[in-house]
Every structure is written in C-alpha cells, then in structure tokens.
C-alpha cells in the first residue's frame, strides 16, 4: 500500500515536471461563503466557477494550459475569510476569486493587493472599488452604477414624488438603500417610509401596512428573492396598488415562481440575471440546470464570468503573468462575439468597476418583459 502511494507520488512528481514543461495547470484560488448565512451566494458562485472551468478545460484550457481551482469556505465570517485568503495567497495563485460578502472583501482585499495578486470578487457594496485598490475587480454592477438607473426610472417614467423604501438589513440591502436614498434626494423625491427588514423574515404584514399608511407614489423593494416573494404576496393581500420597483432580485424568475400572480406588475432594473433576454445567457442557464439541477441566481453567473474574465485577460496578454494581470484587465473590453463565455459585452474601468448592458423589465402575466434596454455607457 505504502509503496503504491510512493509510486503514485513519484508518478505525480514526474508528470507534474513534464506538465510544467508543456504548461502546468494554472492555479486559481476561490474563497467563498460555502456555509453560514451566505451559503446560497457562495455555492452559486462556486458552481458557476466549476462549470466555466470544466468548459474551458474540455476545450483545451487557456493558452494550452488547464485551469485548476481550490475552493475554501469562509463560513460567511470575515475573520475566517481572512484566514482562508491568507492561506490561498501563501500558495501564490494566479488569480484570487471571491469572496461574495462585501465585508469579507473589505478584510481580504488589502492582503491580495499587498501580494500583488488580482482579486475578482462578488461584492456589490459601492465603496469597495472607491479605495484605489489596483487589484480588485467586480463581476457585477456595483450599487453605485445600478441604483442611479433605478432612481432615474422612478423619477422620469413613474414621476413619483414620494417613495417607500423596503430593504433587508445586511450589507447588501443597507448598501443599496443608502445609495438610492442619495439619488432620491437629488431628484427631490421624498422618502415616505424607510423600512428595515431582517434576512429570512417571514411576515411582512406590519411593513406593508406601514407602506399603505405612508401612501407613497411608488415603493422600492430591495430584499432577497424569498423575502421579495413574501412581501409581494402581502402587498397583494392588503391591496396596495402603488408601482413596485426593484433591482435584480424583485423581478427574478424565482420570485415569479414563488409569488405567482402577486408578482405581476413588479418592475425593476436587471444587470445580470439568468432571465436576461440574451441567447448566450439562456444557453448558460440551460447548461447550469443540466449540471446542478437548479436555476442559478446572479451569483452563479458572477462565478462563471469571473473565470471567463481570467481566460480573456490571459489570452489578451498572450502569457500567464500574475503581475501584469490587473494592468491588462483595467480598461479591457471583452466582446461576447469573440469570447462567448463572457455572455454580454463588458468593459472594466480603472477602478475595477464594470460597464455592461442593463434591462428594465416588468412582470406581465408571470413572464419577464423587457421594457427598455439600457445600453453600455461606453
């Protein structure tokens, strides 16, 4: 048995040495919320990554080298995330992937920057890319780019003068609420009710009656999918007729499935969703469902895109160079025509923020209908 292990090790060493000659695997490290409060986020992200890597390796890898990823669980705890990122960086990965929680990104991004390793993460809090970190990249719109679009829509199209905001009290919900409140102030839109709710909250009767009492011109709802469905049902039950606007989550397919009729009429801005009316996204969704047997949320897409960002950037450089990676990705435009895995044309700016097409959709008879396509800015 032991000699077998030794032989195996020897074989592994020899094959690793030969592999190095013709291109050893490119090592990526992922640290994500695989357990704890963010388990849905982290596991979607992880599955997206695995799917993309499987696809790329099946087609011969990147510049002839296979991709290899290690996944580490942050337990949704910033302290643990820091330990795991430290461990990942000690092994000198090509690129660091994750985490998804903004707090965990904040605690780990200085470490990656110090090591000179590019970090492609899932956090959406506005401030993450404002600190001048040259190694940090988003995979989705930050709230500072999505919320202004929602506020503009509420002002220009709905002509609302007062709005109720319902948000989930975690870094995702609070971040969105803070950004959109500022935007509303710019348009002189009054916040008639500012309702904080808990993640996993089951009963929204009290919140909805507060909305009703405030009688706003529109309600902005920024909750996770399950909670979005619950509040939509309660709004219908209490016959609140104001226009309901959200961002990504409110008009997701899962919400429509859970809320049924109650979802009709809900509208929202959607940056990245598996429901996007884009053929490549639909194809992605099918592949994902086939492999994992469930419909991914936008975190699945983010993980998938992160890997194709690695691929496109590396191919642009023409070599595997961890030091030049961040420089190359800054200002890079990746076109879906030449790299289908990126799904939609995308540009990364100097801060690591993302520029991509967005959609304004409305739920009509249980289906997402695109009302307006918001083009890329440049």
């Amino acid at each position, binding site marked *: 048995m032991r000699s077998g292990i030794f032989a195996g090790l020897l074989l592994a060493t020899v094959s690793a040495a030969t592999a190095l000659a013709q291109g050893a695997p490119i090592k990526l490290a992922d640290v994500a919320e*695989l*357990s704890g*409060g963010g388990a849905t986020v982290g596991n979607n992200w992880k599955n997206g990554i695995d799917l993309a890597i499987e696809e790329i390796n099946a087609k011969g890898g990147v510049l002839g080298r296979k991709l290899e990823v290690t*996944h*580490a*669980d942050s*337990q*949704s*705890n*910033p*302290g643990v995330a*820091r*330990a795991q990122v*430290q*461990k990942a*960086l*000690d092994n000198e990965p090509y690129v660091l992937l994750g985490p998804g929680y*903004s*707090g965990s990104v*904040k*605690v780990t991004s*200085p470490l990656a920057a110090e090591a000179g390793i590019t970090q492609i993460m899932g956090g959406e*809090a506005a*401030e993450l890319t404002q600190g001048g970190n040259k190694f940090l990249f988003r995979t989705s719109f930050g709230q500072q780019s999505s919320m202004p679009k929602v506020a503009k829509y509420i002002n220009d199209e709905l002509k609302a003068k007062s709005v109720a905001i319902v948000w989930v*009290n*975690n*870094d995702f919900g*609070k*971040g969105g609420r803070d950004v959109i409140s500022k935007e509303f102030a710019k348009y002189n839109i009054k916040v008639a009710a500012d309702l904080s709710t808990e993640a996993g909250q089951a009963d929204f009767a009290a919140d909805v009656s507060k909305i009703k009492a405030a009688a706003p011109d529109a309600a902005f709802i920024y909750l996770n999918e399950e909670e979005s469905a619950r509040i939509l049902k309660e709004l219908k039950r209490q016959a609140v007729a104001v226009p309901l606007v959200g961002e990504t989550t409110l008009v997701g397919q899962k919400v429509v499935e859970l809320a049924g009729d109650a979802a009709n009429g809900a509208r929202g801005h959607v940056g990245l969703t598996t429901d996007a009316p884009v053929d490549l996204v639909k194809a992605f969704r099918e592949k994902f469902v086939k492999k994992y047997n469930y419909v991914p949320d936008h975190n699945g897409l983010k993980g998938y895109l992160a890997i194709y960002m690695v691929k496109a950037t590396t191919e642009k450089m023409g070599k595997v160079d961890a030091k030049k990676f961040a420089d190359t990705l800054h200002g890079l435009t990746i076109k879906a025509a030449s790299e289908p895995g990126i799904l939609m044309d995308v540009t990364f700016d100097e801060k690591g923020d993302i520029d991509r097409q967005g959609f304004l959709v409305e739920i009509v008879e249980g289906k997402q209908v695109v009302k307006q396509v918001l083009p890329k800015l440049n």
Partner: protein
Amino acid sequence: MTAIGKYWRIALGVAVIAALIIVPMNFNRYGLYILSQWAVMTIAAMGLNLTLGYAGQVSLAQGAFVGIGAYAAAIMTTQGMPLIVALGVAIVLCFAIGWILGYPALRVQHHYLAFVTLAFSTLAFLVFRNEDWLTKGIYGISNIPRPNVLGFATNRPLPFYYFCLGSLGIVSLVMWWLIRSPWGRAFVALRENPVRALSLGIDTRRYTLMAFAIGSALGGVAGTLYAPLTQYIDPVPFNLSLSLDLLMMVIVGGSGFFFGPFLGAMIAVLLPEWLRFTQGYYLMLYAVAVMLLLIYSPTGILGILDRYLTERRTKAASALRAVAKSRLETAP
C-alpha cells in the same frame, strides 16, 4: 504528587511554551493567523471557564463581550488612540456590564440564566448593527491598525502572534493566581454548594456578580486583540454563534479545568482547519468528532485525563491497602 511528577510537569510546561515560541517562526502567514486566533479565543474561553467552570453560572453572552471589546478597540484605535487605552476601556466596560448582567444570575439558574444571557447577546448584536453613528453598522469598521508594543511594530504576522501569545501568557498567570486565591475557592464553593458556601460566611451574592464581571472582562480583553488581528470587524462574527462556540470550547476542553480552554480553543479553531482537506464535509466531520468526544467523556478532554489519573491513584491506593492488609493478617 511526588517530587518527580512535579519536575515532569514543569519540564512539560517549559517544552510547550518553548514550542509555542520557536515552532511558529517558520510558519507561513496563514499558520500564524490561525495560531493568533487560537490565543485570542483561548483568552475569551478562559473568561467563560471562570464564569461557568469555576462559578457554575451558564452564560451565552461571552461572544457579545468579545464584540464589545473588539468595537472598543476598533473605534478607539481608528481614532488614533493607543490600543492599551482601548484595552483599559474594554476591561472596565465589560466588567461593569458583566456585573449588571450578573444580577439575573442571583435570581435564576441554569437554562433560565442561559436565556437571560442569550437575550443580552441578541441585544448587543442589534446595538452593533443598528447604532451606525458609533459602530458604522453593517458596513463594519475597516483599517484597524495593529499596535506598537514597547517600540516594536506588530504589523507583520509573527510579531503580532507573539503579542497575542504574550497577552495569553499574562492572562494565564493572572488566572492561575486568581483560582488559587481565596476568591477562586469561593467561586468553586459557589458552584458546588451555594447554601453551604453562604453558611460558611461567603458573600455568594458578591462572588456571583464577581464571577460574571471578571469572566466578561476577559471576553473584552480577547475582543481588543481580535479587532487588530482581523483588522476589520462587522457585527456578524459576534452573534450568538460565537457565544455558543466559546461555550463549546469550555465544555470540550474540560469545564472547570485550568487548561480546558487551551485545549477547547485548539479543537474549535484548529480541528476544522485540519479537516478542510475533506472539502464539503469538514464541518460535518467536525460536528461528529465533537459529539463523539462528549459521548465518550462528558467532562471534556481533560476529563479523560482526570479519570485516568484518579483511576491510577485509586489502584495504587488499593494496592497499598492490600499490602498493608496482608501484612496485618500475616502478623503474629
């Protein structure tokens, strides 16, 4: 205890301390971070061990006190104050709050007390999260500086580990003295038989509050180290699960044993890391291991050792008795 046994114990202690100082010198940053975390959690668990293990008061609020200490350190050091000042504030604050939290312990015991402290734990979490003006709410406080100790910067992982280890050393010495002092004996009397303790003239009321206050203050000390360790804090790590974790550390290590928290924290911090090679199963295996341990020895790891030593002593004593008896019988 024979003289030889005593020397052995001292030699073992010196060897362990030397190993804790020398071995990590060539650890990578990850290893040092985990070991620092172990030192910090040990301090918090020692506090709880005093409250629970020695004085017998169940507390589910230790995580909240770690949080109070961490926020004190984070808020003050990001404003440019030295960590030692924050440490003082944290100790005083946690001591005072711990003292107040001790009052319910005068009226309720066991799981009722656990519920009272659980409520406090939730309350502390809500304050950390909702009082934006002070704690920056759910966004947390970032860029927490690491301190300069006696002119040495502890920014690098190794010096910071020594800082944590040194703090653990100081806390251990204080604790060692405390439980051997009349106070420590009063705490044990409180746990074993409060009525008898009272009739012996021990002011059980004061000692109950004291056990809570000192235990909580140690939670605060751990918190002031936790903040510069992670250099970023938000409310989430200080929710109920940390209190439960600390409770588990005390019980798994051996509640009421001086070295219990050291071993308990080792299990809670290091075991999941060692099990990580099993990927998605590591938390499950960890849970199973802890359950098996507690089925095998409800008194924790040190309980096993204690049982073994007692057994050996009993055997030795019975052997002596047997010899003495046979001598008596054969005597003319």
